[in-house]
């Protein structure tokens, strides 16, 4: 047995830098300090994404992306395909956990200022991944073609349309027409299973590569060379594995005890049910738009709201270049407070969406 392993190792070693790779992994170390636990969230995001790809591919075996068959094919998966209920519910729950994990991962790296040089590109690709995964969530939500998803998509694309100049053409591009229809479903399906995975593959690849090159960042004040480290393999790897196993247990438990509902089939001619909301991770933006007054000086409230979030997204991307103090290893309370404000704003607005009387 050992002989086979050795000769296989030798064969590959002559063709790819196997020794260097193994050396690299064995030397790789993960810093240990009071904030070490936050390091796990990156891996959790990766694991959840892998889960999405696997369950997504499985669902692809039975899903039909047309307005006439989409709902029925999801019903078929849940009711007739063996373990279809499990695969479908895991896919839906995992999507929500993934977005939650991405936000946590983003905020933890923000507060730990992991975007300091030389890790600016890691931060930028990370932000792009956040936006791409929000697009994943938005496009995927329509695919079951039920009442909630139809109207959430209608409202969401309507909001895109209020942007000046580019708004209308963008709305028509997204919807595949003037209204949300079977054409929208086909298009969103294309985005969800081909376009977005393709782009994410590249950007995630760059993100992970940069991570290997630079290693883990350490909190402000600590020196990378001096900080205590544990070996990546097997110590950190086993810890990460335990994290992944726990997440799997959570996903499966949610799927068994809180299965994702089918809902009612979408009827484009019916009127929207009361209290239509987008998925929870968009609700803080949705409520902001609802609460803004009709007109603020000369701009329409909604347009202002969309522009504010657009600017916030760009601001997020450019943080490494704006937080000049962090480069010098100095703390800047302004950025910390901006971060705290953002976290609190998102949490409070999300909760408020659900407890305020439905409008």
């Amino acid at each position, binding site marked *: 047995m050992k002989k086979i392993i050795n000769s296989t190792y030798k064969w590959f070693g002559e063709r790819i830098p196997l020794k260097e790779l193994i050396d690299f992994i064995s030397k790789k170390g993960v810093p240990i300090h009071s904030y070490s636990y936050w390091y796990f969230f990156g891996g959790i995001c990766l694991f959840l994404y892998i889960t999405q790809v696997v369950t997504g591919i499985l669902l692809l075996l039975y899903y039909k992306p047309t307005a006439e068959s989409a709902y*029925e*094919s999801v019903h078929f998966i849940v009711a*007739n395909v*063996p*373990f279809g209920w499990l695969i479908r519910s895991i896919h839906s729950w995992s999507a929500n956990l993934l977005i939650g994990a991405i936000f946590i991962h983003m905020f933890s790296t923000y507060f730990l200022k992991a975007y300091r040089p030389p890790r600016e590109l890691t931060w930028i690709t990370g932000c792009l991944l956040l936006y791409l995964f929000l697009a994943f969530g938005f496009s995927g939500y329509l695919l079951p073609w039920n009442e909630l998803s139809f109207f959430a998509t209608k409202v969401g694309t309507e909001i895109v349309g209020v942007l000046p100049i580019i708004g209308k053409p963008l709305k028509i591009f997204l919807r595949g027409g003037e209204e949300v229809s079977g054409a929208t479903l086909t298009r969103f399906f294309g985005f969800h299973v081909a376009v977005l995975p393709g782009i994410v593959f590249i950007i995630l690849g760059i993100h992970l590569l940069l991570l290997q090159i630079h290693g883990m960042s350490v909190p402000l004040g600590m020196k990378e060379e001096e900080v205590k480290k544990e070996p990546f393999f097997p110590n950190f790897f086993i810890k990460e594995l335990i994290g992944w196993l726990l997440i*799997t247990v959570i996903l499966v438990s949610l799927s068994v005890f809180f299965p994702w509902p089918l809902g009612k089939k979408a009827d484009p001619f019916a009127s929207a049910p009361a209290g239509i909301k987008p998925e929870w991770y968009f609700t803080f933006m949705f409520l902001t738009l609802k609460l803004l007054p009709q007109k603020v000086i000369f701009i329409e409230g909604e347009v202002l709201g969309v522009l504010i979030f657009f600017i916030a997204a760009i601001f997020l991307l450019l943080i490494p270049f704006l937080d000049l103090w962090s480069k010098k290893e100095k703390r800047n309370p302004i950025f910390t407070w901006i971060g705290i404000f953002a976290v609190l704003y998102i949490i409070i607005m999300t909760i408020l969406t659900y407890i305020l009387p439905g409008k």
Partner: protein
Amino acid sequence: MKKGEKMERREFLKKSLDFIIGGSLLGVIFSIFYPIMKFIFPPKLPEAPQFQVKVGNVDDIPLNSGKVFRFGTRPGIIIRKSDGTFVAFSATCTHLGCIVQYRPDLGHIWCACHNGHFDLSGNVLSGPPPSPLEKFNVKIIGNEIYVTRG
């Protein structure tokens, strides 16, 4: 002596721990792959019925008669007129939701609940129904009748 015993015990524990890890890992892998394996092999009915429902055979429906059938989650009614052609509608009466029927003696559709009458285009002839019956499309392929949404 004690140290030796301790070392033996430690070795035994380590080996059994590895064994436990191996065994439970196998269990975990099985728990993941078994559902996936069962999932990828299609069930007996390989796909969801299309919205295209086969109502029956042309020969089974006599002239000037009607039949109520299941159209997804709603009832539908298919009628063979005296000239041999077929029409199909949603069988839910637009008044209070009862299931309508075809009356060969009247030559049109009737709702028994409150005496609503519909013609063979689905329009209301008399009675309380406020709006016409939703019309479905009928396709004849060979001897088989298929109904799809209008």
